[in-house]
């Protein structure tokens, strides 16, 4: 098993797309941070009028098509839970309070909850999970391992390292881009930041595992990547809303499907998560990881290469 993990980790670092994704991510992070900083500097912009947006995005976002920075097009603060609309696209809303200095934590929170970083992760996750299948390299060794399902487990473990590394690199990128854009570096409250980052890492890993399962089960990069990105862009929210309405019609009222999805939890985790929030997120992420790694392992074991 250890050899398999070493093989996959080695392969991961030899994959060109890993570096391409990191470079693109870095460039976009720098550009969006600069954009957010410029908007914040403008007097009377919504950034200066927003209240501290530490609540789940899914309860606060308006409809936004495409990537919206700083919430300028999204009057998040004026919405209530009852008036919530589902997000189509990616809306990055820093929760910086009026008159307060933006922190790295604010920016990280905004990007993570918007599933902006998750988007890069799932692209690589799908490419990585299917690279050996689509190239045919899998045929070189799949018959020689005693339990083929372990190959999926090994991929999942390699993707865990990728998730942790990506989150760490992202935070670093964000920290580097802040002085460039804002002219100062303010990390934020570490006692809140670190637990938040830990929980988000687990949730993001759960999301990557879901996308890996799509890729392995469907054996089609285009299909699985489209599906994964649809979840990232909130298109799946339409389905969740529909499910909620169906459930309401059969008598199960006030049920919110999105709360039981990994993408919903990524968007919904508040900045200062309570023990209950953390527990629910960890439980849900663990369940998703176990179920989706289990499904893909089973399918891979049973199916011909």
């Amino acid at each position, binding site marked *: 098993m250890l050899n398999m993990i070493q093989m996959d980790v080695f392969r991961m670092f030899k994959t060109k797309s890993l570096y391409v994704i990191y470079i693109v991510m870095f460039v976009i992070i720098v550009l969006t941070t600069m954009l957010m900083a410029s908007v914040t500097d403008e007097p009377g912009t919504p950034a200066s009028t927003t209240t501290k947006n530490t609540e789940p995005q899914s309860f606060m976002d308006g409809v936004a098509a495409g990537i919206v920075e700083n919430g300028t097009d999204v009057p998040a603060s004026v919405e209530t839970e009852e008036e919530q609309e589902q997000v189509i696209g990616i809306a990055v809303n820093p929760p910086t309070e009026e008159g307060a200095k933006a922190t790295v934590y604010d920016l990280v929170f905004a990007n993570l909850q918007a599933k902006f970083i998750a988007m890069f992760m799932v692209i690589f996750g799908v490419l990585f999970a299917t690279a050996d299948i689509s*190239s*045919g*390299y899998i045929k070189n060794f799949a018959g*020689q391992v005693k339990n083929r399902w372990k190959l999926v487990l090994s991929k999942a473990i390699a993707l865990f390292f990728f998730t942790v590394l990506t989150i760490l690199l992202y935070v670093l990128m964000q920290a580097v881009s802040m002085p460039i854009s804002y002219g100062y570096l303010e990390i934020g409250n570490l006692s809140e930041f670190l637990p938040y980052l830990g929980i988000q890492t687990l949730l993001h890993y759960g999301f990557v595992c879901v996308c890996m399962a799509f890729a392995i089960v469907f054996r089609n990069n285009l299909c699985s990547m489209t599906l994964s990105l649809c979840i990232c862009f909130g298109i799946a929210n339409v389905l969740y809303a529909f499910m909620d309405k169906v459930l309401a019609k059969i008598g199960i009222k006030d049920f919110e499907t999105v709360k039981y999805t990994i993408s919903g939890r990524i968007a919904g985790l508040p900045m200062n998560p309570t023990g209950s929030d953390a527990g629910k997120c960890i439980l849900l992420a663990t369940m998703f990881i176990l179920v989706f790694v289990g499904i893909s392992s089973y399918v891979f074991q049973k199916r011909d290469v």
Partner: protein
Amino acid sequence: MTELLLKTEGLTKTFKKYHAVNHVDLHIRKGAVYGFIGRNGAGKTTFLKMIAGLSTQTSGEIELFGYKGKDLSKVRDRIGSLIETPGLYGNMSAYDNLKIKCKLFGIREEKYIKDILETVGLADVGKKKTKQFSLGMKQRLGIGLALVGDPDLLILDEPINGLDPQGIVEVRETIQRLNKEHDMTILISSHILEELSKIATDYGMIHQGILLEELTKEELMERCRERILIRVDEPKKALPVLDELGYKNYQVVDDSHVAVYERIEESEELNYSLVKAGVFVKEIHVASEELENYFIHLTGGANHA
């Protein structure tokens, strides 16, 4: 009795109602180069995939190195395979492609990889990416990948398909070297019979999923070699004449044919002697058969080949 390295009993693979491989009983001696002959779509690849552990049989049994059933997993790593086209990571070098598989086998020595590259004649390719390789180079790297872990049984599916004459010679020489110097048993499929006849020591002929015949190189040569074929009304009447003329190497083929394998140039004298002795000779001619023709006859005529 020669030690059997691979034995299959009633091996069958069915896709819905189509029998791709139908009750195949195949036997491979240790140290043999087994030529697996069949036209495109005959079931060769499906059969080889089952042996290589890439596909599960619908029914029947595989016995490898004396192990069968669930115990097969104990010896799976003793098989190396190159099935269909070589599965390579195009953006990586030959060295890195080999290193990935070496990681799986826990092989750390750089020399091991270099030795394999040398064995398959790719020692000088340097860091050239495999997507820039010629088909012959890719095939040889595919063989190199199959050699990782020092397998006792090497399975090669159409390794010379699409190669130019130089490439064919290189692959042939590599296979012969592996068989002789490493005492490796090789199962090689091809529909290029002339090429196969240069390296195979045993043959199995498959057609429409059914194994038609298994025979050694000597047996095949015997059947294909030049001979005087005599059609008579009663073969037993011709035998005393042949004995009297000093013929020792002859065979009654069926109830109307006798084949004589020596003194081919004396067919006229033989005809005269037979007629003189009162044997009614309906037809006499010198016959010989190429492996290709033999296979065509076996599979039911040229229209099927």
